[in-house]
């Protein structure tokens, strides 16, 4: 794992992966959106509104997936002091927050015509909202301290505590049988939705995943360059100080 601890090596790897990931994102989004919007049947109950699902469900999956990425990065940062892991968590958090917000907003837009209301305090909606707040708390803690290293590790502890929310999200629809429908894809006995709907769903999920890789790598490179910049700035400050001392 420490092979990638070297920022230069990570940057090289990112530069190899990025063009492929960008290409995949474009390809999968176009194919996924075509299937989702034109080439899949409307639902017998929901009509055309079912198409919101192709945006909503992958966003919700990614909200949880990115949280787990962030938590794994936090764990790695705290236990092995891996130098890039802190930055990985920092890079992932805003992306996960946006995915979670997207899941919430698309769910609300779908809920209005289907349930007759934008929002209900059902177990699934509430636990996803809590996840969104956890992302905000993680990012706020990063901002709160001057010492980046300490801020990052404090935020990492919070991220790990927040992991208890993940199983709550997953099983909320089983524990509280309320408005939100139970799982129909990730089931032990196989998916219960029609194949014609599974194709666009999985294409969109793959597109989101590729998109995450792209933005994540971009943000990682940005963080690494920021770190480099601040080190260089400090070094040049020290240089001027010593020069002034010599001159004085």
């Amino acid at each position, binding site marked *: 794992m420490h092979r990638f601890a070297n920022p230069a090596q990570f940057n090289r790897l990112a530069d190899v992966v990025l063009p492929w990931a960008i290409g995949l994102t474009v390809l999968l989004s176009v194919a996924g959106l075509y299937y989702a919007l034109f080439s899949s049947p409307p639902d017998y109950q929901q009509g055309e509104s079912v198409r919101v699902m192709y945006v909503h469900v992958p966003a919700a999956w990614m909200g949880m997936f990115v949280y787990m990425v962030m938590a794994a990065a936090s764990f790695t940062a705290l236990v092995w002091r891996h130098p890039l892991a802190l930055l990985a968590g920092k890079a992932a958090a805003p992306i996960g927050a946006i995915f979670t917000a997207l899941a919430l907003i698309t769910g609300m837009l779908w809920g209005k015509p289907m349930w007759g209301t934008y929002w209900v305090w059902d177990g699934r909606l*509430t636990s996803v909202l809590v996840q969104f707040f956890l992302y905000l*708390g993680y990012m706020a803690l990063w901002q709160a301290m001057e010492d980046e290293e300490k801020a990052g590790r404090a935020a990492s*502890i*919070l991220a790990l505590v927040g992991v208890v929310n993940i199983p709550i999200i997953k099983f909320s629809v089983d524990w509280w049988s309320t408005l939100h429908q139970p799982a129909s894809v990730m089931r032990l006995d196989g998916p219960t939705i029609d194949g014609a709907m599974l194709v666009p769903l999985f294409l969109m999920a793959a597109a989101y995943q590729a998109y995450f890789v792209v933005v994540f790598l971009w943000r990682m490179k940005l963080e690494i360059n920021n770190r480099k910049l601040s080190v260089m700035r400090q070094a040049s400050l020290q240089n001027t100080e010593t020069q002034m001392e010599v001159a004085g």
Partner: protein
Amino acid sequence: MSSMQTVSHGSVFFSLVNRDIKLAWSQGGGSLLAIGFFFIAVSLFPFGIGPEPQVLARIAPGVIWVVALLSSVVSLDRLYQADYEDGSLDDLALSPLGMLGVATAKVLAHWFSTTLPLALAAPALGILLNLPDNAYGPLVASLLIGTPALSLIGSVGAALTVAVRRGGVLMFLLILPLYVPTLIFGVGAVDAAVTMTDPLPHLALLGATTLIAFVVGLFASVAALNLAME
């Protein structure tokens, strides 16, 4: 030496608990403030919502529980900070208790001095909000089971923000989302009594939440405090 050590573990622990409770109840301590906040904030609801007894009875469990959460957070910002700022947390961490013992003692003191009194004061607020007679038992029971979780989870937020100047507001953002399961099961128990169903399953789940908070909360607090002391 060995006899001194056997004495010191327990006595250091309890003298720390004792000291923290005394500090919390002395002038400038957080406990009275939190309980005052609890009363004032709850009594604002009838002004805002209107005095109809049925409406107040319906919202009473939720209002009391939500304000109990807020009162707990209000009292938490000095849990570790005062000792951190004057350096005594360094000394305490070097005592035979270690950081885990210190955190346990401080959480125990916070529970005993601040969140436990909230549970005991809750029936008085129930009267103000016209809570149905059969809901008082579940209200106090749920708060007795749930308040340790409030102190334990709150301790994580207090420890994470111990080195942050003006970390109080940030603490609200960090802690309140983590309080949600406690709130749901706590209110669920009281609501069950109000609607004449069995509150026991809710209380059992609330107990489970508190046990999880016990394990996760103390270890996360210790990790956060050790980080701040570096």
